[in-house]
Every structure is written in structure tokens, then in C-alpha cells.
């Protein structure tokens, strides 16, 4: 296992508001990690910096030794928290786009996963239900042969069956060289699948532990501990 992600004193200010307050963090390969925090805690800010969509005010972030840029975009597969694809496009057009765009994209795997859901390649994205649109987006991300998968709120706003689908897709595509970082506030649904959790609040990391350590030390689930830590 090697270090895949490192943050050093990572800080982000929006005007006078400090969204990330000098975060230090290290993630290894081969892990499924939950980035957990209430709304406005800094989860999406951190993920956007990781993907080069925002620049930090201070501090550094390294993905496999590189700062966000061309090199890291090759190895990071990112699922944003909203649908960013042109909904006028057909599934096939989107798959073709991803094939052109990412050298590590596996169209055969994408079609295989789409076929299992009964989503035809000819159908236009806008005619799909919200749940199916989100599944297509997840499939596109998971069909890459990336080193770091970053999923921003992949299970928010989907029905329980879709949630199960998302979770089994993540397990199915697990590989020991890669890591998956999942941000969510719906902890109870996902904690069994996580190796490690990171609690983030007001731009600070308040805890980084394995799920079994948390259960062992506290005699309660991560979900319950979360509710205690973030009670207000």
C-alpha cells in the first residue's frame, strides 16, 4: 500500500469565510474512505480542490505525488454532486465522449453495467429518470481504471434500491491499487462498506479512524457517533 493522497495545511478562504482550516491528511491505496460531515463542513470544497476546480488559499494537496493538474486528472475519477453531462446526448454519445477523453476508460465495462440495468445505448439522457441518470453518471466514473475515485454525495436523493446498487457497484469495482473517497451525510447506509472514516466539521478534521476502531472503542455505530459529535 502506498500513499495516494496527502494534504498539508490545506486552507481555503471564501472572502472572509474560512471553509478549510489547515487540513492535514493522508490516504493510502486500497481503501474505501468516507468523508463525513454536516452540510457546509467543507467536504465539497476539499473535493473540488482535489479535482483542480478550486485553488487552495494556502497549503498543498498531492495526489500520487502530483499537485492537481493534467497528471492527476488522468488518475482521478470524479463524480460531482450534480449532473454535469449534456442531457441532450444519448448514452452512446456520452460513452464515446468518455472514451475520447480518458485513456483509462473501459467502454466495454460501461456497456456491460448499463446493459445489466436495462439502459439502452440509444436512449437520450434527458428521457431517463433522475435515479437512472445518476446511475449512468456513476457507471461512467466507475468504468475508468483510475487510482482514486472521488464520489461526492453518490447516495443522496436516490431510493433505497438505487442506494444498494451504488454500494454494490463500489464493492464490485474494488481493486487494491485504487482508493475510493465517498462524501456523504447518509452514514448508516454506507458505513459497513467503509474501511476508514474522516469526520470534518467547520473546515477541520475532527477524527480519522477505521469503522471497526470506532465501533470497538465506542460500542456504537459510526452513524450514532456522528450524531453525538455533531449534535447542536
Amino acid at each position, binding site marked *: 500500500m502506498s500513499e495516494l493522497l496527502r494534504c498539508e495545511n490545506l486552507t481555503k478562504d471564501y472572502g472572509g469565510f474560512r471553509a478549510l482550516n489547515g487540513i492535514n491528511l493522508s490516504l493510502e491505496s486500497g481503501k474505501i474512505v468516507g468523508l463525513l460531515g454536516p452540510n457546509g463542513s467543507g467536504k465539497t470544497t476539499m473535493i473540488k480542490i482535489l479535482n483542480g476546480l478550486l485553488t487552495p488559499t494556502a497549503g498543498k494537496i498531492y495526489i500520487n505525488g502530483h499537485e492537481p493538474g493534467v497528471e492527476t486528472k488522468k488518475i482521478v475519477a470524479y463524480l460531482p454532486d450534480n449532473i454535469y453531462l449534456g442531457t441532450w446526448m444519448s448514452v452512446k454519445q456520452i460513452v464515446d465522449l468518455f472514451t475520447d477523453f480518458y485513456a483509462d476508460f473501459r467502454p466495454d465495462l460501461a456497456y456491460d453495467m448499463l446493459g445489466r440495468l436495462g439502459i439502452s445505448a440509444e436512449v437520450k439522457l434527458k428521457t431517463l429518470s433522475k435515479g437512472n441518470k445518476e446511475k449512468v453518471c456513476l457507471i461512467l466514473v466507475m468504468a475508468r481504471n483510475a487510482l482514486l475515485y472521488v464520489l461526492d454525495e453518490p447516495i443522496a436523493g436516490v431510493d433505497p434500491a438505487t442506494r444498494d446498487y451504488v454500494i*454494490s457497484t463500489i464493492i464490485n469495482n474494488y481493486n487494491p491499487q485504487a482508493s475510493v473517497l465517498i462524501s456523504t451525510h447518509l452514514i448508516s447506509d454506507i458505513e459497513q462498506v467503509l474501511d476508514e472514516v474522516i469526520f470534518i466539521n467547520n473546515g477541520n478534521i475532527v477524527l480519522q479512524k477505521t469503522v*471497526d476502531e470506532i*465501533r470497538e472503542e465506542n460500542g456504537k455505530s459510526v*452513524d*450514532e457517533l456522528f450524531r453525538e459529535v455533531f449534535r447542536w
Partner: protein
Amino acid sequence: MEWELDKNRPICPQLCELLCVQIANGELKPNQRLKSVRELALLAGVNPNTVQKSFEQLERQGLIYSVRGTGWFVGETTEKAKETVNEIIRKKTAEYLDEMRKLGLDTPTAKKYIEEWDTDE
């Protein structure tokens, strides 16, 4: 076989326990091949690393063994599994009796409750 897991206890020992019970009660036979790490992770809805850790722990206890490049297999004998399950049962019984003591019941009285327990209840 159901993979019902308690949300408040660590997952790894729970997987070990469930597999141990399956070996002890003959659901898994000696030298039978176990499901792969990924299959079991999907089935139980847990992290593949946790399944791997559970297998390694059961291997250390001598309950299962691994064949390089092939997978994991149930051990030759099931004695050790039965012993382990027995230990768990004794521990749970002790916990139960402890709970009853807190309710003011001594062990003979608690026994009487169990004897009179209607299984339909």
C-alpha cells in the same frame, strides 16, 4: 444464510463468528471452498478488506486455510469451530445471566424462566 450484522459492533469479529457457526453446524463442509472475498463482500454488503481480514483471522485460528491463487477452504476438521462456537454460547449465557442479576433474578430463577418459556411466545 443471512448476513445480519449488528451496527454497534465491529464488523470483522461478526463475520468471523458467522463463518465459524457455518463451519460448526456443517453448512460449510471440511475442505469446501469458501466464497471469494469479493463475493462475500457483496453478499454481506461489507468492505472487501474486512472480509480479507476475517479470513486471515480464521486462518490464524486454524479454522480455514488458503491455497495460493485458488482461494480459501474450510479446514480438515470442524472441532476447533465447534469449540469456538461453544465459547461464544458460554459468553452470551454469562451475559444473559448478568442481565437477569441486574433485574434481581438469581441463576436458578432465571433457569425457571427459560424452562417455562413457551417457544410460541
